[in-house]
């Protein structure tokens, strides 16, 4: 507990936590389960190239996501690259700049030019209204991004894609287990791409998955990913890659899948604890989940309003980092302001006002197995303390800097 602002670690006080609290999920299965899964792999001596665990994982994902095909990959970025090639995209694709770098970078690797779309300031998603004016004949697809465990406006985006006869696919890295009208993300648009990175609710160390109901696209995806052991249709005239998931990754993902209910509930408890502590704080707004939908609750994300809260998001992240609380700025800066896009497409620099505001406000708090309810109490108390002493802290920060 801080008694005066000099006791803040940023002013050389003792950090609140002895070691850094991670911001991502970092959920691990118990060691015994890890060991037993890997003894199984060693007994089978099957290490990669579409092995039995990857096949089991794909079958279970189909079931869980309610979709015909699940194609597991090395990671979600490579999945996005493969998706762009499988869809035979050309010309331009509409995509938000308020997203993780991989979403846009996948287009560049596939030889596609991004058209950056602004986002709705409340949901943080692109909307049909924002997308429509950007659609001209050069656009071959819309790549929408589900953020923070909430799902985009599926109906509106699907209608507009159908009307213009272009592809619609989703970066669903945040949306495993999340629903729209109680249908889980996985079967929306032409395909959806999930992430199983260690910071996500399903942890395959690294990993990803593409889901689709389209048989033709599924075959193309499997061809481009490379799928030894699968005797499907082989397309000769295709540009392939190596996007295979190993048996090691699949083993981890399967363990994580078994723990999904437990871990998403654990996330929800933490999410709600943060909200109960901080909801009344001026200038602090959590991005919540619609009450009638499901979510994985893996992202505890808030907007910090500089004026009302008293200090800026960047300053808050800086102060908390000194306390060993690793909060993350999302997405700072937006992709339209990052190389190579800021130089290649400078016309977007001043055309995304909502994105720019959100990029300066959004903060992610630590959650997952490693964070206790008591930690959240401590973090929240500290955030309230920072708010209450904001002007003194700012003044002193100014001198320190």
């Amino acid at each position: 507990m801080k008694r005066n602002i000099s006791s803040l670690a940023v002013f050389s006080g003792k950090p609140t936590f002895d070691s850094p609290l991670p911001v991502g999920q970092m959920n691990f299965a118990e060691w015994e389960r890890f060991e037993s899964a890997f003894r199984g792999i060693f007994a089978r001596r099957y290490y990669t190239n579409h092995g039995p665990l990857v096949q089991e994982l794909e079958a279970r994902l189909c079931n869980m996501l309610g979709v015909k095909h699940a194609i597991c990959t090395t990671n979600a970025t490579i999945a996005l690259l493969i998706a762009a090639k499988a869809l035979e995209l050309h010309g331009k694709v509409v995509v938000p700049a308020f997203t993780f770098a991989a979403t846009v970078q996948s287009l560049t690797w596939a030889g596609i030019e991004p058209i950056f779309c602004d986002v709705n300031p409340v949901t943080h998603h692109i909307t049909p209204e924002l997308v429509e004016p950007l659609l001209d004949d050069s656009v071959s697809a819309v790549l929408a991004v589900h953020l923070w465990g909430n799902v985009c406006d599926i109906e509106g985006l699907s209608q507009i894609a159908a009307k213009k006869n272009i592809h619609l696919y989703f970066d669903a890295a945040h949306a495993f287990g999340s629903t729209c009208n109680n249908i889980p993300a996985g079967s929306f648009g032409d395909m959806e791409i999930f992430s199983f990175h260690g910071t996500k609710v399903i942890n395959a160390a690294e990993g990803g998955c593409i889901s689709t109901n389209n048989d033709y696209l599924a075959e193309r995806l499997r061809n481009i990913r490379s799928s030894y052991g699968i005797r499907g249709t082989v397309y000769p005239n295709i540009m392939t890659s190596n996007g295979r998931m190993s048996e090691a990754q699949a083993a981890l993902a399967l363990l994580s899948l078994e723990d999904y209910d437990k871990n998403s509930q654990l996330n929800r408890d933490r999410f709600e604890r943060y909200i109960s502590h901080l909801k009344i704080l001026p200038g602090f707004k959590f991005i919540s989940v619609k009450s009638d939908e499901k979510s994985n609750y893996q992202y505890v994300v808030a907007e910090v309003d500089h004026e009302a809260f008293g200090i800026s998001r960047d300053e808050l992240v800086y102060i908390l980092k000194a306390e060993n609380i690793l909060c993350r700025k999302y997405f700072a800066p937006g992709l339209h302001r990052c190389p190579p896009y800021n130089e290649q497409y400078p016309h977007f620099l001043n055309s995304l006002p909502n994105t720019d505001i959100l990029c300066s406000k959004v903060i992610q708090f630590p959650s997952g197995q490693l964070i206790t309810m008591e930690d959240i109490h401590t973090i929240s108390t500290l955030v309230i303390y920072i708010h209450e002493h904001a002007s003194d802290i700012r003044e002193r920060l100014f001198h320190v800097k």
Partner: protein
Amino acid sequence: MIKRNIDDLALFGGPKAFWEIRSTSNLVQPDIENFLNYSKRIYKNRRITNNGPLVQELEARLATLHETSYCITFCSGFMALMLAIYDMHIKGINEGEAEVIMPSLTYRRMADIAAWAGLVPSFCDVDTNTLGMTAETVEPCINKKTTLILGVHPIVNLCDINGLEQLSKQYNIPLLFDSVEASLASYKGKMIGSFGQAEVFSLHASKLLNGFEGGYLTTNDGELAEGLRKGRSFGFSGRDTIVRLGLNAKLNEVHAAMTLACLDEIDSQITSNKIRYMAYKERLADIEGVDIVPYDEREKRSFKNILVKLDNSWPLSREHTLQILHAENLLARPYYYPPLHKKDTPYKQKMCNNLHITEPLSLNHMLLPCGEFVSVEDVNLAVDILAFLHDHGMELQKHFAAEEVK
């Protein structure tokens, strides 16, 4: 089970010579307790990816092994090559025109890798004896649009490192080696890893070091290394700043643990590989028409791959030979067939000369089963079958001819 007449061949209904498949994949398995000990550190560190401590330890050990200043790991050899080609090629040539010179007789996805990096693969011929690129086969392909030479080592021994390095200097074109098949070889007594501007290796389960999936690059060029480190992690420099185009090509900690465990046993693995190779070499010497492609035993070699050439005195086509072997559970494979220039691609590619050496080579070489699953008894049995095929050549020829008539 000894074959007495051709009806004893599994292809014609006889029992299979091998109960289990013998393939050309290495699938080497390290000691599981050692692997689990490395993995326990993942739990202790609570780090499972993003340039974790095991990845850093692996990179340091590989750099030492290859005698280079830098080693950078990747999620695959494919992604290592794609990023390295993208970073190293000369910039400024019109997009869709810039060329990378590579052999046609190579890994089936090699041209695709160049296309992902935005370059046009330009196929060169190889040397008849080494099956590798030489200054003579590469030089005719160099033109104003050449932005990179990809020096790919063949499956046995090395390509003409000296000749390619001289060409690279003379024309001022960067040189990247694909050393995936060469693994831990030496050139004129020096461990490979620091030739050209960089070299790429694979950690796929079928390769010398089994990391499930994975790859790495070695170089002495600090700037290149720094750029690739950022490139493999979305172009991030530090926590929040993106400074370049990148993607996710990181090796995770579990794959690093597996590779480290394999690395601990590398000497004994190479010893077993050499025993297998010597057994093949000795036995095949007695069989007319099958010539093993010999390793240069004066240099350091890992002896994993077993490559043979079927010469004119061999009575069967390679395809019939493979058909018979596959039926016996011997998954021998054609050597890089079809060559890349014979494949249709959705992107532009180029033959820079007529590849008159590549074509016949692509038709008469094959890889024999090797790696951890293959014992010396297996080698003997495999060679017995080849001897049987040779001795019953006329009869088999008649059989296949009659089948063709049908």
